[in-house]
């Protein structure tokens, strides 16, 4: 049940309507039932996985707390954390990395002239498994660290793991943030519901008007070697388009998740903080998919020693985190390369920072000037787009071919109408241009960290209604959906 499916458009109002009508005490039960129904709409069997991960981490929490004050308790607690992590990661490995691991093993066996391991094991990747397993593991670790009180009610805890707005693609919530919200009832608040719906509407705009439109162009180019092997300007455009497609797709999803949660009375982590306004890729990764970055920092980077180690070790830690992040995104060499490249760029930027500061001091650059901000944004978009080529490609070879093809630049292709030959005609480019202006305007209005929704709330009724109706009209009339277009999977649903 994708957020952009008709099924969800029926499901969500029904869930919300019943949620606020039933007694407060059992509202969380309704949400738990709705969440499992939501997850089972993909494949009912995979609810067992969700339940297994829930049960393991819930038990780990209970047992960890029991160890407090007992002799040998600390050691036992560490064992319990390890058991929880290993068993959850084993689930993840079996369903996500088994075939990738086997292919590596068979390569090694091939080198050693040993027969490859054959298997008939075939399974579809359960949707959202990478997200809810990380979220569940955060609970084990938070209980271990004493950052959160243990939850004794299995079903309330199950709602923390399965809360449907963020179940399949995040934001990955920390137990200390989300669990307390589950324990208190939420009443109907008109303003909050309205704000939540506005955010959902904006999410639909990002997904249906921008991301899915860009996807037509991107898929056409990536699907045709005859194009991308000699693409030049076409490849460059595709690269930039895919950077924005990923952003609009994932930020759109996150806004839908945040909005849906807000309607129900929950506040989730803001996952995107105008990432293309970052000064460099290092900062970019603190503003892009914030909840995942935070998870890796809290539960991997800091346990590895974080910044309190030698510079070399720190850079190794950075690389480990990015490689892990790459592997988390997908079981393929392309994702490992993607993580490695991001790590490399981040390390290079850190290494060059002192040099850059000196250079800036000598030439008296103002980092905050409009021109520098434009240059920084252009750099971030270009570098992110370049690395995303590996994210989008089916193989390393395809990514390399794509980048080689991009080098065959013929600027004339920008003006001879060639770009209209990849699924988007002039009208679609105009719609995209207008949508980009809106995207930029929204980000610009939030540059001081203020809420655009609060600003809209202060506007006169007619202007407010006009804006909302214009947004609805844009989604309805200019959204990419309907026959000929499958309700497009959100890119991050595959993780």
């Amino acid at each position: 049940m994708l957020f952009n499916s008709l099924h969800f458009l029926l499901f969500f109002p029904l869930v919300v309507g019943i949620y606020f009508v039933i007694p407060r005490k059992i509202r969380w039960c309704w949400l738990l039932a709705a969440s499992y129904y939501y997850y089972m709409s993909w494949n009912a069997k995979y609810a067992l996985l969700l339940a297994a991960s829930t049960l393991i981490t819930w038990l780990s929490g209970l047992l960890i707390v029991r160890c407090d004050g007992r002799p040998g308790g600390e050691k036992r607690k560490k064992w319990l954390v390890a058991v929880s992590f290993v068993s959850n990661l084993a689930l993840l490995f079996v369903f996500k990395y088994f075939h990738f691991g086997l292919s590596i093993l068979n390569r090694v066996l091939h080198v050693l002239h040993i027969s490859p391991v054959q298997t008939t094991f075939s399974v579809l990747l359960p949707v959202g498994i990478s997200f809810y397993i990380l979220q569940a593991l955060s609970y084990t670790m938070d209980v271990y660290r004493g950052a959160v009180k243990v939850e004794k009610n299995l079903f309330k805890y199950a709602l923390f793991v399965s809360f449907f707005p963020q179940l399949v693609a995040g934001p990955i919530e920390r137990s200390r943030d989300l669990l307390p919200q589950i324990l208190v009832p939420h009443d109907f608040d008109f303003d909050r519901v309205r704000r939540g719906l506005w955010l959902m509407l904006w999410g639909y705009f990002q997904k249906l008007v921008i991301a899915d439109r860009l996807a037509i162009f991107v898929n056409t180019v990536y699907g045709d070697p005859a194009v991308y092997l000699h693409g030049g300007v076409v490849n460059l455009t595709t690269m930039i388009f895919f950077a924005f497609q990923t952003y609009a797709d994932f930020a759109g999803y996150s806004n839908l998740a945040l909005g849906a949660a807000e309607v129900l009375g929950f506040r989730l982590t803001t996952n995107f903080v105008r990432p293309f306004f970052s000064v460099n890729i290092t900062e970019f990764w603190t503003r892009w998919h914030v909840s995942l970055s935070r998870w890796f920092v809290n539960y991997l980077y800091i346990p590895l020693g974080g910044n309190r180690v030698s510079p070399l070790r720190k850079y190794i830690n950075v690389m480990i985190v990015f490689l892990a992040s790459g592997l988390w995104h997908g079981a393929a060499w392309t994702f490992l390369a993607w993580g490695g490249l991001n790590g490399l760029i981040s390390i290079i930027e850190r290494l060059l920072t002192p040099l850059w500061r000196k250079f800036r001091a000598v030439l008296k650059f103002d980092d905050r000037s409009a021109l520098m901000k434009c240059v920084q944004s252009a750099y971030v978009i270009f570098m992110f787009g370049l690395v995303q080529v590996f994210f989008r490609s089916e193989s390393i070879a395809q990514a390399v071919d794509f980048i080689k093809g991009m080098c065959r630049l013929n600027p004339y292709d920008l003006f001879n109408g060639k770009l209209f030959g990849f699924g988007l005609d002039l009208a679609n480019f105009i719609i995209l241009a207008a949508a980009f202006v809106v995207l930029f305007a929204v980000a610009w209005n939030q540059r001081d960290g203020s809420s655009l929704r609060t600003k809209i709330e202060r506007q006169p009724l007619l202007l407010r209604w006009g804006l909302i109706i214009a947004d609805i009209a844009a989604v309805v009339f200019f959204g990419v959906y309907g026959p000929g277009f499958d309700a497009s999977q959100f890119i991050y649903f595959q993780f």
Partner: protein
Amino acid sequence: MKKVLSALCFLVIVIGLFHLSNVMLFEKQHFGTAKNIAHEEAEKIDVFFIGPSHIFYGINPMTIWTESGIAGYNLTTHQQPLWTSKLLLQYALKHQHPKLIVFDVLMATNFGRPLIGTDQGTNMTHLALDPIPLSLQKIKGVLETESIIEKGEILLPLILNHSRLQQGLLTWDDFHFFSGDRSHPTKGYNYTENTLSYDRPLVPDADTVHELPDGMEPVLIDFIQYCRGQDLPLLFIKTPLVGNEELYGQINLIGKIAEQYEVPFLDFNRLYDEIGMDFSVDLADSGHLNVRGAEKVSAYLAGYLKSHYDLPDRRGDEAYAGWEQAARHFKSLRELPESSDIASFFTAADDPNLLITVEVGGKTGEPILLPEEVLNAMHGAGLTRVPESVGNRTYYGVIKGGKVLMENDSSSEILTDEFMVKDTRFAIRVSPKEPDGGSFLAALYIDTGGYALTDPGMMIAAYDMDRMEKITAVRCAFDAAGTIEHIK
């Protein structure tokens, strides 16, 4: 409370805009009469003729009206899927209480097979049901209809139709669907003179039967039960067609089902001699009748209905002026292309769906008098500036929907004018030649095509604004022989 009221107002506005968008964006095919039925006067239609294109080409309510005074209406769409007929009828019954349902069974045969479980079936369901506004009845009907696969898309046709806006496919009809008279000018009949010749088919005897496509029989029976439940007499028909043995066998099987459920069945494929069917001239193609074939079938059907059912003769009843007007429009379509009477163009000009252009000029220095009956007819149509004598004068006039749209005359200037009808541009040019240059030149351009007249006289063009098609254009020389020539 204020906030809740405000939210409700907002919701009403959004739903209203959503409804308007749906109305604007659905595809308005000329023959999709579901879009027009809501705009027929309530409680007027006595007989619904329901079915696919074989009805809108094969049954002519105007012939039936002229022959019997029965107020009939074709409730049809292209390839109307069997399962949509019931929903269309349900919708029509909101405002009409017919005394009889006549149903063409074509879509229960192999013709309906490509629609079962396919995108084509979904598209045809859209054509039939998109014009019906969303209501509880529509929701219930669509949800209960197993044959409709894409239920969400059918209930919210914007899912399909919003792409028409992005692809620039909207037409004049889409933007103006909210205004004007939306009743169908020929009561659902689709006029065509196209002709293809066929040999008279060999129709197997009534005992030769072939199975219907899977799932069709229950839908057919459901339709019978629905009509029975509504206390509506039902008559099955099948218009003449050129088919194979399997198709005729399926029609025969439907005859058996009809018999079982006591539904009378009029299979015109068993009545070729009785209706005077001539396969060399009466078909537009192997399945569709042209205007001649439709007249024969409709005249027979009119007699059958009159003799078998107690249906009132509405002729002369002022409340049924719409049928009278439709009959006049059909008469114009049918007779003007053959007419040799100039006055008939002007007497027909009060038809709201007719456009008449007239351009007149003579040879410089050689005045000719317009015949008095022509002048009178033109005056009668409201054209007041037409000169009695043309020679050194030029003139043009345009009558649109019974009203004079423009009129001008001159002794020396080149006259030009243009106007739009829906998306079509019309341009007129009338120019006198120099004294030594001989006769005048008149032209009518319709978009990129047009007609011209280079000899003295008059050029008249009649245009059907409903179908946006030329009916005919004639040149009249007003010479001694009074020649009238239809421009091909």
